[in-house]
């Protein structure tokens, strides 16, 4: 069996829900205190054993590639001249580049074609027929056991594509995520019978929402090409549709519930702010002071 060594991260969106700052700053680079969101995802992938990370960028927008690239010479000089504290900082930021092998793919816009399926097809040449993790860069897990490691472990047992999932039962969630239903194999593991994108509460196939990324086998790509052929201009090209067709053909697809993990989203203002606060509280340098500040706020509000 092929070991999972590669991951694909799409970073070609326009982040319009975070405008105006995303006019020039890609949403994947929005700060969580002092570290961009995408780095959280990359670090978790690397910890799970991923060696090569393929990032799909919008043509001409290469800020993410610059971030994982060389430290600018001027900044380097400035830090080296600034004493031991700044020299240590330089080491830290140079380590960002060495986290993994980064491969960048330009996604060239096709009028009217958008959605989660597209970046995978653009990344295909870099995948060289290997299975891989497909995950987004504006949401992530903070887990006691690495979420991608949980998915890889399930992939190794089932030898089938994996849909990362968590229970989501707020009414609005059913209009926001894809949901899976199927036959329980083990605790938190389903043989998927249905996958529906944004089913709405009335049509939900279950309560497991697809939100932790995927492990994708080469066979899924064959299906994805087939889906692409039938996408009409202006309709979304869903990655999940390929999995749906596989299931219809009687192929095995597994939904794996990510356990012991907290999910963070940064895709809209409110969720972004909640995530920033959660990361700030955990921050080694400012966490304690920030917590104190928040506590003060809540105490004042409470007494009003």
């Amino acid at each position, binding site marked *: 069996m092929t070991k999972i060594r590669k991951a694909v991260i799409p970073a070609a969106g326009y982040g319009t829900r975070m405008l105006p700052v995303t006019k020039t700053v890609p949403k994947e680079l929005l700060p969580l205190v*002092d570290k961009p969101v995408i*780095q959280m995802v990359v670090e978790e992938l690397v910890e799970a054993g991923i060696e090569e990370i393929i990032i799909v960028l919008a043509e001409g927008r290469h800020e993410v590639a610059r*971030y994982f690239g060389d430290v600018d010479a001027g900044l380097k000089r400035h830090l080296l001249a600034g004493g031991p504290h700044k020299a240590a900082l330089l080491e830290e930021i140079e380590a960002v580049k060495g986290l993994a092998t980064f491969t960048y793919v330009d996604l060239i816009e096709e009028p009217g074609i958008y959605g989660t399926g597209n970046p995978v097809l653009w990344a295909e040449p870099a995948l060289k027929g290997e299975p891989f993790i497909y995950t987004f860069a504006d949401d992530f897990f903070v887990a006691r056991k690495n979420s991608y490691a949980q998915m890889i472990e399930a992939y190794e047992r089932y030898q089938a594509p994996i849909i990362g999932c968590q229970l989501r039962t707020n009414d609005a969630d059913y209009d926001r995520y894809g949901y899976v239903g199927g036959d329980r194999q083990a605790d938190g593991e389903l043989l998927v019978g249905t996958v529906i994108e944004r089913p709405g509460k009335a049509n939900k196939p279950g309560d497991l929402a697809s939100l932790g990324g995927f492990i994708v086998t080469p066979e899924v790509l064959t299906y994805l090409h087939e889906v692409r052929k039938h996408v009409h201009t202006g309709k979304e090209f869903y990655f999940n549709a390929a999995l749906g067709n596989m299931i219809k053909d009687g192929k095995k697809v597994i939904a794996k519930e990510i356990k012991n993990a907290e999910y963070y989203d940064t895709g809209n203002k409110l969720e972004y702010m909640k995530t920033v606060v959660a990361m700030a509280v955990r921050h080694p340098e400012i966490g304690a002071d920030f917590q104190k500040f928040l506590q003060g706020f809540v105490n004042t509000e409470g007494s009003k």
Partner: protein
Amino acid sequence: MKVKKAVIAAAGFGTRFLPQTKAMPKEMLPLVDKPIIQHVVEELVEAGIEDIIIVSNYSKRSIEDHFDVPSGELTKVLESGSKQELLEEVRKISDLANFIYVRQKEPLGNAAPLVYAGHLLPDEPFIYTWADDFFVATPSRFRQMIDAFDQTGSSIVSCKRATEDVDYDRYGIVAGEPDDSGMLKMTTIIEKPGKEQAPSDLASVSSYLFAPGIMGYVDKIYKSYTGQGELTVQQAMQMMINEGHTYYACEIANGQYYDAGNKLEYLKTIVDFALARDDIGDAFKRFLQDKLR
């Protein structure tokens, strides 16, 4: 003379936010969804400033792009997604003022931006401000400063009261005597004196409004600069005060000072901004209360 120009110093490396500032200039750090520098620019514009000179360096391209029209691709995405209002909002950013960009070639100190922008600053008053700390005040901080200038014709330094002991180690503290203007007429400004040595509790923060004449003094200190130490506006200001020019310390009234220049203060700032918003303020407040109960 009407104040129409402002200079924003935006050439720092922002090392306190690394690795994040490897990806974006610290001036572009978002106050929820709006870059800090846009917030400062909007405050300047609201106070009547027309020309905004941004002194930056080669790593700050995204600032220039932010104050440009949106890219063709973004425009297309917003048009096809029927987000006309949002498109209008991002387009308007480029019309806020006349933007003029100058590169600071060497980090010589806090007067360096004025050295490099000198040719754009003829003999007229202008505001000199940073883009990582600011006030939220009513009327705005820049309006209060311009009013004080209109009233006195003298240079104005925006100030806040020191509230914590560390403030005396962090800011320049001003000394002087109150006069008819109701403001402190400055005799000196002492950088980071410590609480014991501080001549008052008025700290000079964030911005200056310089009356005509300052650039001659900036020239003077630059010409005598030996490469040792830093070239600071405080040196030029002190020289002017010594030669009989008037500076007033203007305590910004009815407002709150935000220092987004370090991680903790930045975080506090964005929490305040998120709470004050119409769209997410209530939901965010509930989140904080739940989280901390």
